[in-house]
């Protein structure tokens, strides 16, 4: 595929992610932070986010699997997930955290499990989307093109 086409796809894809709420303004901030001294900043941060989130989701699964669920612990995990997802701009993941915390407060295991399920789904979705986005970037760069800035 020629560079121009790749670039257009990239722009469109990025716009759709924002439109559909997968990403929010915070992600744009990350993009603006990227510069020559830190050319892979976004990819690095997002990778870190993936690692961290998967760890948290695992911890959450285990915590909710206990016979005696420690809701404070669950809440702490969700809180952290909320913090990191909001920091990278993963809006839909962040939005799942709010009801999740309420379920924790109510100490409702069933509801928490449902929230966990939902958050996992959203996480996988956004992970997939971002990975696609990064691949597009790589293709553009490989083709000698520059990555267009999507405002």
């Amino acid at each position, binding site marked *: 595929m020629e560079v121009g086409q790749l670039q257009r796809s990239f722009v469109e894809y990025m716009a759709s992610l924002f439109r559909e709420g997968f990403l929010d303004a915070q992600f744009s901030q990350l993009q603006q932070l990227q510069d020559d001294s830190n050319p892979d*900043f976004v990819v690095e941060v997002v990778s870190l986010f993936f690692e961290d989130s998967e760890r948290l989701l695992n911890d959450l699964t285990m915590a909710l699997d206990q016979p005696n669920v420690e809701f404070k612990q669950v809440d702490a995990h969700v809180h952290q997930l909320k913090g990191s997802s909001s920091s*990278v701009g993963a809006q839909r993941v962040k939005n799942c955290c709010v009801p999740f915390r309420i379920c924790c407060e109510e100490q409702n295991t069933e509801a928490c499990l449902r929230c966990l399920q939902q958050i996992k789904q959203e996480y996988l979705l956004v992970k997939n989307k971002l990975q696609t986005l990064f691949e597009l970037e790589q293709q553009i760069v490989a083709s000698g093109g520059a990555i267009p800035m999507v405002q």
Partner: protein
Amino acid sequence: MNLGTASSSVSWQSSINDRVSDMQFPAGLRVLVVDDDPTCLMILEQMLRKCHYEVTKSNRAEIALSMLRENRNGFDIVISDVHMPDMNGFKLLEHVGLEMDLPVIMMSADDSKDVVMKGVTHGACDYLIKPVRIEALKNIWQHVIRKKKHEFPKDKDFEQSTSLEDGDRQQKPQDDVDYSSSANEGNWKSSKKRKEEEDENEDRDDTSTLKKPRVVWSVELHQQFVQAVNQLGIDKAVPKKILELMNVPGLTRENVASHLQKYRLYLRRLSGVSQHQSGLNNSFMGHPEATYGMSSFNGLELQALAATGQLPAQSLATLQAAALGRSATKSAISMPLVDQRNIFSFENPKLRFPEGQQQQLNNSNKQINLLHGIPTTMEPKQLADLHQSSQSFVAMNMQGNPRMQQNNALLMHMSQQQHPSRAQMLNETNNGQVSRPPLSISQPLSSNGIRGPVYNQVSQASSMVDFSLNQNSELQNNGSPLVSSNSGMSTLTSKRIISSDIKGSRGFPPGYDIFEELHQQKSQDWGLTNVGSTFGASTDHSSIPGTLDVSPSMLVQQGISSIKKNGQNGNSHISKVFSSREESGNVHPMGGGPQLNLLPGGNLLTVKSEQLPDTSYQNTFFPDQFGQDDLMSALLKQQESVGQVETDFGFDGYSPLDNLLV
């Protein structure tokens, strides 16, 4: 060492100065950022780099703390997350404030008011909500400048007045925050701080025009300080003696005094026992519900001051307390309580109080036992021992509990009543005089069976109060000293009154009468129980039987529970109680402000429920003497009304009582 650290602190300041005047500033600002979330940490680091700051990051609070200690002057500002696994961000904040006195910015994804307020009361100079935007970080340098500016008013770079007189210093805060003249508390603290700065200047003869290096409380120095304090005993740890024991050249009593204040606050928070600081009382003064017609000096200003980093957290709390009746203060007050609760990790309170009641209360109350960390919970037999114990106990409980203010006032009132002479004073105060009670809080404590921290705390509190009182001599406060029938409790009270700057006519709030009544009753009925002692004063109610009448007991309980609830272990700042009174705009040393609903029965409950989300303490307070049934029913009623406040705070299971003093 001290000189060394002092001079290095001076150099820090001068480097700041240099950098400020440098065109490049704030570039190169040295920021330490602490967050256990690696994603956020990375983003913050990048953002700060973009702002041309020098960034050091750490994902562990303890590591950050040791970095700060090793390189005391290596950082200009600290940014820390609130929720961290190894250490609560607020604890880190306290440590930094206590030891290094750097501006600290808190941040969290949690934007609930309670947590933000906690940041304020702990002395954070700012609070950022995640996700943090780079724009928010661009201006953090202002906190560095502001803090510096306030610490070195004389620095000509900052165009400060050259004269170091207290008056000038007091002016400064006034200029900044438009304190009303009566808001001495704030002024006192500010001026005290300035004064301290002045005293710390060991390099110059003419202290008035030169920048004074701050005494930097290095770890060693702090250890010496702690040793001295422990040697003296918390109750006897007055700045003068501490200074003597420490025997550190160049250290002044004022340095020690201000550090002692911070330390006490810190201990209070740590153990949940409220250490009484005169300032603390003030913090509780600001009961939001109080319809006190407080003067303009209020929490806002205090907060503003605090926000600027000028005031350490403790001072802020104090000042806030002083700012009677501000709703802001209220929240501030609750913060410490919340914090305390955190410390105790939501455990079911282990009420050592009358077992019977205790159990019932425990069951019905899932509040944290604020006294958990404090072995002093009053045992029934202890209760029986002394009024004083109860007094001090109450005092302790009251301390730090904003909600308890009312109760405190009540209790104070009570305790005061116990002494006939005091009663007179109470009357006098009722008439609007604020008397400064001699500090003798510690006394009752010693006599009590109350042990451990509670005891210490109270005495500390008292000495603090004492100290503050002395220091406040310049503060004009309210005139007549409070009758301190209580061992020092009154002092606290008076302190609060002073700070609250309520003078002149202190009307007696409607509740006051009840208070008096209760007071009298209490003295009769309560006998040795703590509660009794506090309420002893008002015993007008002939109706009050040997077993407490519901009303008075309710009051007591309420007060106590509220105190407890607030998580103020130990240190009961009686003054708080008073302060709450004061808050109501009228200084009633005795009277209860609007908050106190001394009205028999129901009112108390009402009051309580508002204030005390946590009724855990209530349990501890009921002395054996009170008809257990009565008490229980009262308590249970209270608890029900109070509800599960605890959950409001949304604690994240922080480990309790981390030993922060690494």
